[in-house]
């Protein structure tokens, strides 16, 4: 299907040029990175832009780096690059794990993690891992820089707190001071490539603090302070985990749609929560466990 209307295209070489273009066109501009969501949207004609600003020429947005105790993931980092990053494999395995479950290789070679959270479609895979890691989104505009904690980033399905003249430069993840391990669970109709019907992210710390996030079971992905506080107060005994599992009914309210019913989603969130918690517990004890599934990706890991 051809895109039935015309628009301009600019490929700035620097961040400054990109910001100036954004300031000039404001809400009539759209940022183009991987384009896997954007080109579909252009075909459907939801929002007709005046101009696309292709940021792929801005090299400083391509980095994955560890700066002091912060992990930084640039706006142009694709899911394939996440799967080849030793830094992410070693420091934010849950993100690495989720990246491997995004669509298929041909999409991952192009789609960016930042694009995923900017499109903010409810079934995205990046949100739960970033939520449990307390990630921060870094924005820039002609007015200056702004940081938004991921918990305040999502407004609604496909809506974030980004302003029309802003550009996300990178996402940062603070590296916890204590030992930690995460696990991501995604429910799909078939493996290989599918959107999530529901997903759960768990990050477990050595002091038994637990961060839990649920995705694709509401308009926006969410952490659950209720469950986290319960586990913090009562520990990780089988009884408490059962109590937390039952609490899920009160903290999420999934809908029935073409991909799954609300009952199925709710049931599977309970199952996936326990699976993720068990996996995280096993990983925190034996970190080597984590590479079993992604052996091919491990072979290709590169040191940045």
């Amino acid at each position, binding site marked *: *299907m*051809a*895109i039935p*209307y*015309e*628009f*301009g*295209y600019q*490929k700035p070489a620097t961040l400054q040029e990109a910001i100036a273009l954004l300031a000039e066109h404001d809400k009539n501009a759209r940022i*183009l990175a991987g*384009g*896997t969501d954007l*080109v*579909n949207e*252009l*075909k459907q004609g939801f929002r007709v832009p005046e101009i*696309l600003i*292709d940021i*792929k020429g801005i090299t400083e947005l391509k980095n994955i780096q560890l700066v002091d105790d912060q992990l930084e993931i640039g706006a142009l980092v694709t899911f*394939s690059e996440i799967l080849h990053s030793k830094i992410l494999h070693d420091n934010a395995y849950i993100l690495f794990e989720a990246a491997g479950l995004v*669509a*298929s*290789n*041909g*999409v991952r*070679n*192009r789609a960016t993690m930042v694009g995923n959270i900017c499109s903010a479609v409810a079934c995205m895979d990046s949100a739960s891992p970033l939520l449990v890691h307390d990630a921060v989104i870094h924005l820039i505009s002609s007015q200056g820089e702004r940081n938004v904690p991921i918990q305040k980033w999502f407004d609604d399905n496909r809506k974030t707190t980004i302003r029309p003249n802003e550009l996300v430069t990178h996402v940062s993840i603070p590296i916890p001071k204590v030992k930690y391990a995460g696990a991501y669970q995604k429910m799909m109709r078939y*493996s*290989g*490539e599918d959107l999530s019907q529901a997903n759960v992210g768990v990050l477990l710390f050595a002091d038994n603090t637990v961060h839990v996030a649920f995705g694709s079971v509401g308009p926006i992905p969410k952490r659950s302070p209720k469950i986290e506080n319960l586990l913090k107060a009562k520990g990780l005994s089988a009884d408490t985990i059962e109590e937390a599992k039952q609490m899920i009914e009160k903290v999420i309210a999934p809908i029935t749609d073409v991909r799954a019913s609300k009952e199925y989603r709710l049931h599977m969130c309970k199952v996936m929560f326990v699976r993720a918690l068990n996996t995280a517990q096993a990983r925190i004890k034996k970190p080597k466990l984590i590479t079993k599934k992604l*052996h*091919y990706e491990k*072979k*290709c890991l590169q040191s940045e």
Partner: protein
Amino acid sequence: MKKNVFSLNDEIRSIYINPNETLLEVLRDKLGVKSPKCGCDSGDCGACTVLIDGKSVRSCLILAIEVDGSTISTLEGISKDGLSPLQKAFHEHNVFQCGYCAPGMILSATELLKKNPHPSEHDIKEAIAGNLCRCTGYIPVIEAILDFTKKD
């Protein structure tokens, strides 16, 4: 219209492109390269797969204007001098019936084998995921690639 210059199957091509044209449309309708197919037109089926700088991508989700300066390979390039050894393996295993998914399958396998010459069955499944086949299923594809890597 903007002039784009890129390498297509080892030939330098320069062509005037509108920003609203997808790479798939330009390859098929302006450059006569017909191996990438338009299946779902939304990145799910893999029929439009091409390699950009060696990586498999969905050409229906890329604007042609984005590929300025890139190196693009399609099945036509891979089989320039007759069937490639990988294609011969596919042929021997009767992998395809209608052939619509063939370019995507072969290009995805080409990308995989370049990075990982001895993939496991799991690696192969992961690499060809997102290339939908409605005729023969996926087993012959996996067998052909495994067989090819054993001969190697």
